[in-house]
């Protein structure tokens, strides 16, 4: 049997070329499948078509139909099937075509998958990944963030990377993790030219559960993740330039379990905390962060914990509405100024 050639577009890191966020994810999947025979993929249109966003382009040809499985439109069914395969020692990676469509799998994820270990059914090594987020004029059903649907479920991990390097390392860590992981990929990052970077040509992982300080600062801490990391950094740079403010930006990377320590350490230094998330406001992750900081760093607070988020509404379709719905850099700037002056 002749060994199949690795598809060209999956060798960029090997060749020292920069990759996009999307390519980093493809590389992570590809490398993990090569490394470990028990890793396999399930999802709608991921085989012949290569995935709605082409994350798994050419995977079917390389790995064959037993490891790249085109599924019916049945998110509950194939996510449940992934759980069954995980019971048998395989390590399934499920693609949800748009993460908005994870909701038919809500029952099996929260009731079965998340509780499996606790109920004595053994580990559940399984990753559910897919595109999230707004800004693409996708309307109410192709633009949502899904972290808060699962953040309340003990037993799950939730990962939401902001850049190619983290995306690759976190996805590899998620695949090797023995717990079920929800992995969110922001569509606006997928092909963003500004994010292209050369990744280390080695088998690195980024451990789950560890936030990253993107930018150090003294006056104010911004805790954020995903696409909002970039708006927050942009805001921090403007505040530095225009106001002389020193803003620390923390990228959570893993949302569950939450890296309290990183947040608390920073807040104890800056005394001020702004949480920025793209997801809608009420019941967003900012609440849990505020609670934990209250519990662990109340003494150090010099002002209220504040947040910049999407508004409480379905994601509207029209560009003008969606732009207003989503948190913008200007909002982060204004909120930071207000808090710094508090």
């Amino acid at each position, binding site marked *: 049997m002749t060994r199949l050639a690795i598809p060209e577009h999956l060798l960029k890191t090997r060749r020292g070329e920069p990759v996009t966020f999307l390519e980093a994810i493809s590389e992570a999947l590809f490398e993990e499948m090569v490394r470990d025979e028990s890793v396999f993929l399930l999802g709608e249109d991921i085989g012949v078509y290569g995935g709605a966003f082409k994350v798994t382009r050419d995977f079917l040809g390389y790995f064959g139909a037993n490891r790249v499985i085109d599924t019916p439109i*049945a998110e509950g069914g194939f996510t449940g099937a992934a759980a069954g395969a995980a019971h048998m020692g395989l390590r399934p990676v499920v693609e949800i075509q748009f993460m908005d469509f994870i909701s038919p799998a809500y029952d099996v994820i929260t009731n079965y998958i998340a509780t499996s270990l606790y109920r004595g059914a053994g580990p559940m090594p399984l990753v559910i990944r897919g595109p999230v987020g707004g800004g693409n004029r996708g309307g109410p059903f192709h633009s949502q963030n899904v972290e808060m649907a699962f953040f309340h479920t003990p037993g799950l991990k939730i990962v939401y990377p902001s850049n190619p390097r983290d995306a690759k390392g976190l996805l590899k860590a998620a695949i090797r993790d023995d717990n079920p992981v929800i992995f969110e990929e922001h569509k606006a990052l997928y092909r963003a030219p500004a994010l292209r970077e050369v990744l280390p040509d080695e088998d690195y992982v980024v451990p789950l559960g560890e936030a990253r300080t993107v930018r150090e600062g003294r006056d104010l801490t911004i805790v954020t993740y995903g696409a909002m990391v970039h708006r927050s950094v942009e805001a921090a740079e403007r505040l530095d330039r225009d106001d002389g403010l020193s803003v620390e930006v923390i990228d959570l990377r893993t949302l569950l379990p939450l890296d309290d320590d990183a947040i608390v350490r920073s807040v104890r230094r800056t005394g001020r905390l702004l949480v920025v998330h793209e997801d809608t406001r009420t019941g967003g992750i900012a609440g849990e962060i505020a609670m934990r900081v209250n519990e662990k760093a109340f003494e150090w607070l010099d002002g209220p914990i504040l947040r910049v988020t999407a508004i409480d509404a*379905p994601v509207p379709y029209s560009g003008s509405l969606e732009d207003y719905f989503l948190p913008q850099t200007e909002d982060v700037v204004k909120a930071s100024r207000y808090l710094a002056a508090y």
Partner: protein
Amino acid sequence: MAEHDAHGLGRAELHQLYRALVLAKSADASLDSLHRTGSLETSVASRPGRSEVAAAAAFALRRADDGTGDLMVLSGSSAGAVFLFGLDLVDFFRQHLGRATGPTRGRDAGGSWLDFSRGFVGPLASHGTMIEVMAGVTLAMRLRGEDRVGVVLYGAEASAAGAWHEGVNFAAAQSCPLVLVVENDEWGSNRGVPRSSRLSTFQAKGPGYGIGSESVDAADALAVFDSIRRATGLARAGDGTRLVEVRYPVDGSAADPTWVLRTRMLESGWATTQELDALESEVAGACTAASEQARAEPVPEGRDAVPGVYTDVELPAPWTRALHPGAALAEGAL
């Protein structure tokens, strides 16, 4: 020339049907061109023949504009079939272009809009959901003893979804006057793989729900019309839920139902080439004019994203958008 050769349709009705097909097709084509020329960011999912078939199905319904007629849900691939319900051509483009003047004022995407008084319900993104919803719509019809029916269209792949099953089963168990149309182009989203099931014909699903089912060729709009008229007739008469499969060629090379009907109309002497040519260019002109008009209209103001989440609770605009964020915060803004 027999006036009533075509399934009891007279000449005028045949012209209306043909016009509905041409309009469906033209509307889709206009959307496509809006997308290609950059006016429409998201492409529209319509695929060859689908809107025309849906229009032929709609033609079989009792349509009314006062909330007393039948109700129909289109699939994402047949969005162009709305006009028989009296919906405005300009509104169609406004909706797709997210204009402030459109039916959902820019809030919902593309085909997702509805007009209950006219009996039209736009598709929703989560596959299968609208069968559940229409089970309830037609349950209400039955509970009230109304002489109405519902029709819901979905691509065949949707049949794998739990919502599809729960909806059909509920409707069947409750004898709801609902006709489910399965648009079987198992070549799927142009993605080359039939994987929704092992079935080649979805007609086989009927008996598993204890409901009648039949299958019809997509290329023949008159046959589709006839099949839906028969199925809705039975549902209306109290026979409960039914399933109609519309078969598209598996290789994706759909015989164009408009062309097939045109040929038949000309051959049977139901119309002249001049008549049909005139109709076609009238429709094409109307589409161009309507899409141009919609394109020129304004998009919504950003802050219109805020109201309308509840009927009775007003949610505040974001505090950071206010001139004085601190004051806005104190007043309980978001």
